[in-house]
């Protein structure tokens, strides 16, 4: 009896030692050589595997960084400049700073501004909807409101506002990975410069139809009148296809265009709310221009921020 136990232990020990030797030799023989820097780079990356950099994941991005001669073509939008500095430190390379970006929804076609012309009863997906027809409003270009961008966001930064039917971007959470930009079949979302303290001026419309048609479909459509381009001293605004576009690399945030816009398609967000007294002269100045829409939208900005926070909760409900 004792002998059996001793033999068993001996044989199994021997077998273990033998196999360990075999495994060791095999591991030596077939070892995959990988640049140890890849692992080091990967450690400083966010590890979200979002694909915002254009690579399949963080590991692929690290491999690409290590293999590249400079970091100019590699940028991790999620980690931003800080992460890229760390990556550069690991690899001993230099990195150019990039201005932080944020996803911007360029449509303000809320239920009030853009009346519904028909009822969509199909599958709730923007891609499916846009493949079927023009959408349930008179606007062929605007947001379809089925939330493909919400589903695409890996960081929970986008949520649908049930009151407006439009997506809202949480600037704190948005990493500018660009997943929502790719997911939107209408091209409503754009990555724009985040701006100092989040202050941005942009055209909240992408309707390329003639002014009258666009305005009929949506109260706050850009009609391509060109007033903003005329007033801009920095040559930042271009008008093409009946639509104004602000080049954020040239825009100096003077907000002259915002006051000029007759439909309120141009908006400025995150600017400090003007105090009650200085606001008074601004309002009549804006009133001279057909409608005081510009001034209204400036005031709207903080309200929009507040609603963003609210909608984070509603997103969970939707799930």
């Amino acid at each position, binding site marked *: 009896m004792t002998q059996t136990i001793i033999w068993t232990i001996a044989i199994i020990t021997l077998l273990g030692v033998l196999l360990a030797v075999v495994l060791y030799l095999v591991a030596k023989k077939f070892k995959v050589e990988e640049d140890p820097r890849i692992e080091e780079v990967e450690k400083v990356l966010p590890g979200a595997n979002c694909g915002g950099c254009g690579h399949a994941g963080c590991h692929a991005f690290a491999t690409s960084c290590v293999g590249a001669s400079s970091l100019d073509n590699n940028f991790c939008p999620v980690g931003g400049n800080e992460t890229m500095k760390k990556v550069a430190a690991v690899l001993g390379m230099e990195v150019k700073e990039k201005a932080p970006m944020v996803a911007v929804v360029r449509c303000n076609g809320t239920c009030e501004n853009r009346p519904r*012309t*028909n009822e969509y*009863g*199909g*599958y709730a*997906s923007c*891609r*499916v909807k846009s*493949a*079927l*027809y*023009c*959408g*349930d409003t008179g606007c*062929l270009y605007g947001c379809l409101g089925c939330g493909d961008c919400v589903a695409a966001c890996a960081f929970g930064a986008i949520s649908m506002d049930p009151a407006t039917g439009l997506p809202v971007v949480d600037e704190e959470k948005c990493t500018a990975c660009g997943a929502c930009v790719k997911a939107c079949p209408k091209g409503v979302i754009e990555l724009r410069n985040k701006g100092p303290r989040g202050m941005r001026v942009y055209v909240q419309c992408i309707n390329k*139809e003639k002014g009258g048609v666009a305005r009929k479909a949506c109260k706050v459509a850009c009609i391509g009148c060109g007033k903003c381009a005329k007033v801009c001293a920095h040559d930042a605004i271009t008008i093409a296809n009946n639509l104004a576009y602000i080049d954020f690399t040239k825009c100096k945030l003077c907000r002259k265009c915002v006051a000029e816009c007759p439909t309120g398609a141009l908006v400025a967000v995150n600017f400090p709310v003007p105090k009650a007294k200085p606001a008074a002269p601004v309002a009549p100045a804006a009133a001279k221009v057909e409608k005081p829409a510009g001034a209204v939208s400036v005031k709207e900005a903080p309200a929009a921020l507040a609603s963003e926070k609210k909608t984070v909760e509603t997103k969970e409900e939707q799930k």
Partner: protein
Amino acid sequence: MKKTFSIGGVHPNDSKISSGCRIEVLPVPGTVYVSMLQHLGAMANPVVAVGDKVKVGQVIGEPSGFISAFVHSPVSGTVKSIGPRKDLAGWNITHVEIEVEGDEWAEGIDLSDTLVTEIPQDTKAILDKIKLNGVVGLGGATFPAHVKLCPPPGKKAECLILNGAECEPYLTSDNRIMIERSKEIVVGAAIMKYVLGGCPAVIGIEENKPEAIAAMKAAVAELQANAKGYDGISVMVLKKKYPQGGEKQLIDAVMHRQVKSMGLPIDVGAVVQNVATSLAVYEAVQKNKPLITNTLTVTGDCLPMERQHNYLFRIGTPLSFIIDQMGGIPEAAVKVVSGGPMMGKAIVNLDATTVKGSSSLLFLTAAQTVRKEQGNCIRCGKCAEACPMGLEPFLLNKLAKNRMMDELEENAVHDCIECGCCLYTCPANIPLLDVIRIAKGDVIKIIRGRQAAARAAAEAAKAAEAAKAAEPAKVAEPAKK
């Protein structure tokens, strides 16, 4: 034993309510809007200017590519405007607006009712007439007819199949023309048969249209007895099964041949044309009449019998005009569909106009249109059983949701004919077709891109070779000097 296609298919209630309604000629409206995109392919270029006087049958749009078609004026009058107008899905398409004045036809169009049975013995002249008269396939895809009737070199048509299946529920326009204009259709078939080199022609009709079957059989027998060139035309009665009217399914049912993935019917020696196309070919070739009219069914469960219609309409007639003529939208209707309930498209814009391929105005009630609550896939395999192309919709749906393009291509998503059998049969109400249709588009784009890249690479290789061949010559030249 009646024939049908071998795999898949569903049996929806056929609801051919208006099959007994005679074709009525719809009055000409005061203004028509003629779309420049009434066919598959490139948009036609308008060739008239604002203020021009046009006659019925005059060319107002010319094709802008190989796969494109002529567009003719359906009315006589003055061109009021040329510009974008919303089609029935809400997209902007160039339309020519014509204010109607009288009804003056262009010269050379035979307006008499006499049946011309003698087939012109000149293939090129026939094809030219079909092309110049803007005939497109009226089975749904509106593919230019003359392109289909010219098989590519090296391929020969062995059978012309006339599609009289009309497998979509509710639609009855093909049924009516087969009953009322059967002889013209048979002459059209004989013309196309002649163009294709005298191959046999089979008219496939589903068993639920006994009147049409009898009429077509009588017409074929009469013409075979009295005129030349009608041998080899026969009527085949098919079992009732959706989507029998699909090109590949009809070939399978009639010839027992399967078109391979990404292949064309001509690969297996078949050419399929709709019976309405055949009628248009007859009018184009024998009467020199362009394709400016078509038959449209106005139907729906919510319409009483006396409001069911089959109209012969002028192309470009606004849908709202047709609705006025039939007495307004019924109260119970919540959705108007152009085409059948399986593959038709919901109309979002009733100011849109009819086009060459318009086949119906179908009014659906709330109960018929509401989507039931979506459940989870229980892997019952009903969709795979129903798919007439032998695909696995449940798998494609999953792959499409995960955007797995390589796997989607391996599973032949590009073979989907969008018939909707999977969606119809799914007990969990999963929107299979909606998702698969998107994936199909993406995969086809990838395949086309790859083919274009391969072509470009081959050309580049050729150019490089040519350059190599030219190089020694260049080197040799200075040596001579």
